[in-house]
C-alpha cells in the first residue's frame, strides 16, 4: 500500500452531505465518506452535537437551522443520516425538517436502526441503507448521478411513487483492506454545538483514536446488534467475522498519528479483538510497538485471557482490557444471553493480572427482567471473588429492535412492544447506568452489591454479610443503596485527589468539562 496515494479531487458534480446526531465518534459515516470520496464524490459531514452524558435532548431550533443552512451552502444531491435506535425520535424530527426545507433532495438513512427496522423507516425517507454501507452508498450515488435506476441496488431500500423496493444485501465485504481509511480531514467537517458551528474534525479534540481491526463477531449474543446483522447476512460459507491486515491497520494509525495532535492512546473498538490467529498476532505484536508504540486498550474474550498472550500484548502496549462477564450465572448466560460462561478464564486472568497490573474493566448487565434472583446472586458472588482493583462497565438491559432477545421476548409476550428502542429511549437515558433510575428493590440491592464489590476499600466480609442477610436488606434497601452511592463518592473524590496530585487534573480541565456538560445540557 502506498502512503503517497492521495484522495481524489472530486471529479463528479454530485455533492453529498452526511449527517449524524450525538455521534461524534461515528466511524461508519467516516468510512462512507471516504469510500464516496475515492469514487470522486464530494462529501461533507455534519456532526449535530456531541454525546457526553445521558441527557440527549432535541437539538435547538437554532442548531437545526444551522444544519439546514450548511446543507443549503453545500447544495447536495443526496443527504445521508446515520443513527442508532434510541436516537430515532430525534433523527425523525431532524429529517422531517430537512425534507420540509429541501423536498427535492433525496435522503437516505443508514445505521443500525434502519437496518433493524427497515419496514417502518422506509416510510419516512427516500432510501435506506441496510447493513454495511460503503459499497451500497457508492452504487446509490453513482445511480443518482447518472440518473440510472435506484430501485434495484443491493442493500438499498427505495421508495418511489409510493412503491417500496426492498433489496437484499450484497455478500459481505470479505477483503476489508479494500476499504479506505475513515475520513478524518478537517475541512469537510462541521461540528454544531452550543448554538454555533466550527469547521473541524471534532474527534481530534480527544487524545484517543478509535480504530476497528475487524468487522463482525464470532459470537451471537442475544441482546447485541450482531444478532441483527447475522439475520441480515444469513448466508453460509462466508466469513461474518473478518480482520484487516496488520499492514492496513498500521497505515491507518500512521495517518491518525499525523492528524491527531494530542494522540495518547488507541482504542481498538472491535466487538472482539485479536481473535485472528497466530500468524496475524505474531506480525502485529512484532510491528505495533516499533511502528506505532502508542498505549492501547481493547476488548478481549475470555479464551484470549491466557498468560502468554496477555504478556505479549502488554509488551506491545496494552494498558487496559475490557472483558464481558455480563452475568456470572451459567443459566442466565446460556438461556437468556446466548453466551457461554467464561468465568474460569476470567478468574484465571484476574489472578494473573496481579503480576501484569493491567487496568481491567468487566462488562456487567443489570436491570434484566428475565433474570431470577439466583442469577443475580451468582454474579454478585463472582464479582466479590474477583481480585481487586477493577472497574465495571454497567449496562442496563435494553431491547433493540431485531435482536434475537427482543424477537424472543415479543414472541413469548414477556416484552411490551413500547419498550423496544426506537419507541423507547431508555438506551440513551441509561447509556451510563445511573443510581437514581427507577428500579425494583431487589435490583437496587444487587446494583448496590455490585458497586460495593468493586471498591477496594469496602471489606469483602462486610459485603458477604449483607448478602447473607439479603432478605432483610432487600426489604430495607435504602441504607445499602445510599451506602453504595457514598462509596461511589469516595472513589471519585479519591480519583480527583490522585489526579490533582499527579498534575493530570487541573482547574482548567475541571472548568472546561463542567462548561462542556452545561453547554450540552442546554
Amino acid at each position, binding site marked *: *500500500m502506498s502512503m503517497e496515494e*492521495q*484522495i481524489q479531487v472530486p471529479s463528479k458534480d454530485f455533492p453529498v452531505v452526511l449527517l449524524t446526531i450525538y455521534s461524534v465518534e461515528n466511524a461508519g459515516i467516516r468510512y462512507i465518506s471516504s469510500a464516496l470520496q*475515492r*469514487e470522486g464524490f464530494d462529501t461533507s459531514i455534519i456532526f449535530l452535537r456531541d454525546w*457526553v*452524558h445521558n441527557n440527549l435532548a432535541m437539538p435547538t431550533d437554532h442548531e437545526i437551522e444551522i444544519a439546514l443552512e450548511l446543507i443549503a451552502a453545500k447544495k447536495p444531491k443526496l443527504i445521508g443520516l446515520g443513527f442508532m435506535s434510541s436516537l430515532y425520535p430525534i433523527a425523525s424530527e431532524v429529517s422531517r425538517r430537512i425534507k420540509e426545507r429541501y423536498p427535492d433532495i433525496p435522503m437516505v438513512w443508514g445505521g443500525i436502526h434502519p437496518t433493524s427496522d427497515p419496514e417502518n423507516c422506509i416510510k419516512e425517507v427516500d432510501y435506506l441503507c441496510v447493513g454495511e454501507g460503503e459499497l451500497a452508498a457508492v452504487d446509490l450515488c453513482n445511480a443518482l448521478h447518472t440518473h440510472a435506476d435506484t430501485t434495484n441496488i443491493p442493500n438499498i431500500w427505495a421508495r418511489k411513487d409510493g412503491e417500496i423496493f426492498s433489496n437484499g444485501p450484497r455478500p459481505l465485504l*470479505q477483503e476489508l483492506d*479494500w*476499504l479506505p481509511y475513515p475520513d*478524518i*480531514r*478537517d475541512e469537510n467537517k462541521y461540528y454544531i454545538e452550543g448554538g454555533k458551528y466550527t*469547521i473541524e474534525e471534532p474527534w481530534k*479534540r*480527544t*487524545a*484517543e483514536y478509535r480504530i476497528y481491526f475487524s468487522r*463482525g463477531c*464470532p*459470537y*451471537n449474543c*442475544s441482546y447485541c446488534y450482531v444478532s441483527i446483522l447475522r439475520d441480515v447476512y444469513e448466508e453460509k*460459507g*462466508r466469513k*461474518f*467475522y473478518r480482520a484487516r491486515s496488520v499492514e*492496513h491497520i498500521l497505515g491507518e494509525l500512521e*495517518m491518525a498519528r499525523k492528524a491527531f*495532535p*494530542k494522540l495518547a492512546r488507541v482504542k481498538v473498538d472491535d466487538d472482539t479483538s485479536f*481473535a485472528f490467529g*497466530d500468524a496475524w498476532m505474531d506480525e502485529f505484536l512484532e510491528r505495533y510497538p516499533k511502528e506505532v508504540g502508542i498505549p492501547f486498550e481493547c476488548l478481549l474474550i*475470555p*479464551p*484470549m485471557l491466557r498468560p502468554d498472550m496477555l504478556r505479549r500484548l502488554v509488551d506491545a502496549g496494552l494498558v487496559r482490557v475490557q472483558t464481558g462477564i455480563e452475568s456470572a450465572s451459567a443459566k442466565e448466560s446460556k438461556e437468556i444471553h*446466548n453466551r457461554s*460462561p467464561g468465568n474460569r*478464564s476470567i478468574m484465571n486472568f484476574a489472578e494473573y493480572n496481579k503480576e501484569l497490573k493491567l487496568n481491567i*474493566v468487566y462488562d*456487567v448487565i443489570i436491570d434484566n427482567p428475565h433474570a431470577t434472583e439466583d442469577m443475580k446472586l451468582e454474579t454478585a458472588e463472582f464479582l466479590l471473588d474477583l481480585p481487586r482493583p477493577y*472497574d465495571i*462497565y*454497567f449496562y442496563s438491559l435494553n431491547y433493540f429492535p431485531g435482536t434475537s432477545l427482543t424477537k424472543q421476548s415479543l414472541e413469548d409476550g414477556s416484552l411490551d412492544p413500547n419498550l423496544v428502542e426506537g419507541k423507547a429511549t431508555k438506551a440513551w437515558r441509561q447509556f*451510563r*447506568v445511573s443510581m*437514581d433510575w427507577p428500579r425494583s428493590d431487589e435490583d437496587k440491592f444487587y446494583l448496590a452489591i455490585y458497586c460495593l464489590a468493586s471498591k477496594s476499600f469496602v471489606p469483602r466480609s462486610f459485603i458477604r454479610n449483607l448478602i447473607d442477610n439479603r432478605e432483610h436488606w432487600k426489604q430495607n434497601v435504602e441504607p445499602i443503596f445510599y451506602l453504595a*452511592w457514598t462509596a*461511589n*463518592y469516595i*472513589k*471519585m473524590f479519591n480519583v480527583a485527589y490522585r489526579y490533582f496530585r499527579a498534575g*493530570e*487534573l487541573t*482547574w482548567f*480541565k475541571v472548568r*472546561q*468539562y*463542567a*462548561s462542556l456538560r452545561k453547554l450540552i445540557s442546554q
Partner: protein
Amino acid sequence: MGLRARIKAKIKEKIKDARSLMAIVHEEANHPGRPQPHMAARNPLWGGETGGKSDDKPASNTEVTQPAAKKSTSEPKEELDGDNDFWYLRGDDEGWSDPNPGQS
C-alpha cells in the same frame, strides 16, 4: 481594582471551581462504573482530555494528508472460507470452546 476586590474575586473564582468539581463528582457518583470509552475520553476524572483551550480556533487549516488505503478500481475480492472455524473455539477453554448455540 483594589486588593480587597482582587482577593474577593479570587475567592469567588475558587468557590466556583470547587462547585464545578463537586458537580462533576456528584454526577460521577450517580453513575457507577466506568463511562464508556467515548465519554471517558472527554472526562477528566477518567483520564480523558476535553481538548485544548475552549477558545481554540477550529483546526480547519491543519494539513493532514488523507492517504487512500487502496484504489477501488475493481470490486473487492471474495473469500469463501466460512466462519465456523475460529481457532480459539477449538480448544478446551472453559465452555467458550463451544460455539454459541445460534452460530453452529
